[in-house]
C-alpha cells in the first residue's frame, strides 16, 4: 500500500461516508488478511451464539433439574471444596495469554524480532496450559460419571452441552496453539523480516500475520468469557 494516497482522508462520520463512496477499498489501509479474519470471526461469533442459545434453550426447558454448578465444578483443597477454583485459574491463564499476544503484536510492528517471538511462544504455552487444565477438568468430570449421554447429578443435557461447547472452544484454542507454535518458529527464524514465501500459499510473510493471529486469539479468549459466564456462573 502506498502511503501518500491514504494521507489527508477525512475523519469521523464524514470519513466513513467518504470511504464507503470511494473506489478501490471500503476500509482504507486495512490489510486483506486482517479484514478477512474479522469477517471470519463474525461468522464464528454466529456459530458460538447458536451453540450458547441452544444451551440456554436446552437448560431452560429440561424436565430434570440442572446440576448445581458450584458443586460440580468445585475442587477439593485438602478436604474443603472450593467452587470454581480450577476455572478461575484457567480463565486467568487464558486472559494473561491475551496480554502477551497483544505485546507480541506491538513488538512485531516495532520489528523487534526476538521479543515478538518470545511473547508468541509465551502465548502458545499459556494456551497449552489452558488446554491441559481443560483436559484435567474433563477427566475429573468423566471420572465422576458425567458423560455426553448421561449425568449422575441431574439433567443429561448438562453433560452433552458442556462437552460439546467446551470441546468446540477447546478445538479453537488447540488450533490457535498450533499456529502460535508455528508462528513462534517463523518469527525466530526471521521469516517476517525477510519476507520469506509461505510453504503452501507462496505469499510473502509479514508481521501483520502476527496481528491476524492475535485477533483470532483474543476472539477465542472473549468466547471463553461468555462460556465461563454461561456455564459456571449461571
Amino acid at each position, binding site marked *: *500500500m*502506498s502511503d*501518500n*494516497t*491514504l494521507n489527508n482522508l477525512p475523519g469521523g462520520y464524514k470519513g466513513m461516508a467518504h470511504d*464507503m*463512496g*470511494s*473506489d*478501490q*477499498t*471500503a*476500509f*482504507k*489501509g*486495512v490489510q*486483506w*488478511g486482517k*479484514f*478477512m479474519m474479522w*469477517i*471470519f470471526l*463474525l*461468522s*464464528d461469533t*454466529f*456459530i458460538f*451464539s*447458536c*451453540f450458547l442459545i*441452544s444451551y440456554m*434453550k*436446552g437448560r431452560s*426447558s*429440561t*424436565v*430434570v433439574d440442572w446440576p448445581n454448578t458450584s458443586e460440580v465444578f468445585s475442587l477439593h483443597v485438602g478436604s474443603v471444596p472450593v467452587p470454581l477454583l480450577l476455572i478461575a485459574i484457567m480463565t486467568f491463564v487464558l486472559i494473561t495469554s491475551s496480554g502477551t499476544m497483544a505485546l507480541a503484536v506491538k513488538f512485531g510492528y516495532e520489528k523487534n524480532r526476538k521479543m515478538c517471538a518470545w511473547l508468541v511462544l509465551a502465548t502458545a504455552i499459556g494456551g497449552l496450559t489452558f488446554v491441559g487444565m481443560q483436559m484435567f477438568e474433563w477427566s475429573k468430570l468423566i471420572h465422576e460419571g458425567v458423560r*455426553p*449421554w*448421561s449425568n449422575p447429578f441431574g*439433567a*443429561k*443435557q448438562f*453433560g*452433552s*452441552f458442556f462437552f*460439546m461447547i467446551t470441546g*468446540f472452544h477447546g478445538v479453537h484454542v488447540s488450533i490457535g496453539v498450533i499456529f502460535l507454535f508455528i508462528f513462534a518458529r517463523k518469527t525466530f527464524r526471521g521469516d517476517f523480516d525477510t519476507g520469506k514465501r509461505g510453504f*503452501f*500459499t*507462496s*505469499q*510473502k510473510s509479514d508481521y501483520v500475520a502476527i496481528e491476524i493471529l492475535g485477533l483470532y486469539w483474543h476472539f477465542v479468549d472473549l468466547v471463553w468469557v461468555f462460556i465461563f459466564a454461561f456455564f459456571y456462573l449461571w
Partner: protein
Amino acid sequence: MSDEYNQNNTPLEAQSSETMSGSSSSKTDIDYVRPAELSEQDLYHGKSFITKWIFCQDAKVIGVQYFLTAVFTGIVGLVLSWLMRLQLGFPELVPFITAEHYYQFVTMHGMIMVVYFLTALFLGGFGNYLIPLMVGSRDMIFPYVNMVSYWMFFIAVCVLMASFFVPGGPTGAGWTLYPPQAILPGSPGSGMGIILMLTSLSLFVIGFTMGGLNYLVTILQARTRGMTLMRMPLTIWGIFTATALAMLAFPALLVSCIMMTLDKVLETSFFMPAIIQAGEVLDYGGGSPVLFQHLFWFFGHPEVYIVALPAFGIVSDLISVHARKNIFGYRMMVWAIVGIGGLSFFVWAHHMYVSGMNPWFGFFFATTTLIIAVPTALKVYNWIITLFRANIRMNTVMLFCLGFIVTFVNGGITGIFLGNVAVDIPLSDTYFVIAHFHMVMGIAPLMVIMGAVYHWFPLVTGRMLSEKLGKWHFWITFLGAYSIYFPMHYLGFIGVPRRYFEMYDSPYMASAVGMNEFITVAALIVGAAQFIFIYNIITSLRIGKPAGKNPWKANSLEWLTSEVPPVHGNFGEKLPVVHRWPYDFNVPGSKEDYIPQTTPPSEVIGAEVEKT
C-alpha cells in the same frame, strides 16, 4: 548482479510511477481518478498441468471447476426427480422404487438442488468467475484459500455421493432432516446415510466459508481504480449480499449438523424428546425437536435468498445489456438487494407455522415475511420498467430473462398466500407449497443460470452457443416447467399432501390421477430438454461461432480484458480504470449505443451520461 536486479524490476517500477504521476498531475482534469492505493497483487502462476488445471489458484478456473461439479450434482438431482415423478404419475411402473427409496430420492433431490447445485453454482461458479473480472482485480485476494475452498466442496460432494452406496442408502428424512425421525431406525438411511449427509454439509460449510471470505474481501477491498461500490454491476451486489448472508446463516446449519451428529453417534439428547420405539423406551429424553427447526430455518430461509439474490443481480445485468437500456433505479435495486438480505434473517419461522410454536410468533413472522414483498416487488417493477420502450434483442438470453420474471412473479404471489398463517395452515404440506418454492427458487433461478450461461459462454470459451438450439431449449423448458408446476397449485388446493409415496385409493383424489400423469410426462420432457443444453455446450466448444471481443457490446469490465477468454491475471499489464457505471446504453449524444466503463469522460463529451 545488481544490473540484473535492476533489469528485472524496470517494467514494474515504470508502471507504478507512471500511474502515480499520470493521475496526480492535474486535479481539475475531468478524467481524474484517485491514484492507486493498492500495490500489484502477488500471484502464483501455475506451471505444471496440476497447478494450472487441478489445484489451480486462478479464480476463473476454480469458477469453472465449481460450475462443472455443481452441474454434475444437479444432473443427479434431476434424475432423482424423474424417479420421483415416475412413481407419482405411474405408481408401481418401476418396481425398484419402494417407499423407502422414494423418500431417499425426495431428500437427496432437495438437498442436492438447494445446497450443492444452486448455492455452489451461483456463488462458487459465477462468483469466482465474475467477481475479480467485474470489479477489476487480478484474482481473488487469497487464491490459495480459494483453491482449498473448491476442494473442500469437492470432498463434500464425494461424501454426499458416497451415501448412495452405504448400507441402508442415503438419508430419507426429507431435505429438512427434522429430528427425531431423521436419526431413528423408522426412516430410511438413518444409519450411515444421515451421518454422511451431516458430515457432507459440515464440509460444505467449511469450504464455503473459505470461498465466501474471499468473495467479500475481494469486493470490498480489491476493486480497481474508479470502481466505487455504486459503480459495481448488480451481479456483484447480488453475489456480495448473498455471500454475506451465507457467512451468517451457514453457522446455524453447522451447529445443527454437529448437534444432530452427536445425537446420532453419542446418543446425546439435544433434539430428542423421550421416545418409545416399538414398545421399548429409548435412552433419549428432554431434548427439543423444535430447537432444530429454529436452527435449521435460521439457515434455511437466508439460504433461499442466497440462491435468489445472485439471480436478481445477474438478471438485472442481462436485461440491461440485452434491452440496450440502463437498469431502471440502480440505487433502488442495490438497496432492495441489501434490504431483502437484511430482512431474510427475521422471517425464518414462517416455515414453522404448524410446528406448534407460540401463535404470536406466527403473527410476527407473517408480518416480516409480507414486508419482504415490498423490496421484491420493487425489483420486479424496475425490471419491467427497464424493458419498457427498450431496444430489446429477442435472443435466448433475453428469453430466459423474461421467463425468469414471469416465473418469479408467479412464485412470489403464491408466497404471499403461504406467508399468512391462516392461509398457510390448510395449504402447508400440500403440493401448493411444492409449486410455490419450485417456481420461486427452482425454476426462476434456473432461468437466470441458463440465461447467464448463454450470456457468458462466449467470454469463458471464446465461442457463441447455438441460438437455434438455445431457443428450443428455452421454449421446452419454460412451457414444460409451467406444465409441471402450474397444475400442482390445483393439486395443493384439493389437498394432495406432499412427500406421500402413493395416493392409493383415496376417492377424493381421483381427479389428481390424470394430472399427476400429465405432470410426470412434462417433467420427463423438461429434464430431457436439458440435454439439448448440454449438447449445445459441448458442440459449441468446438464448432461454435467465434465470439471475438465483447460480442454483446456490454459495458462491464469482464468483456474488456486484454485477451478473450481472459488469462490468469485477467487484465494484461495494467488494470483498467473505471469512469462510470456499467449501464450507459443508448446514451443521448454518444456515437455508439454503449459506453464501456473504462471510457473516460473526455472521449464522450457530448453524451448525456448518468452521473455515477
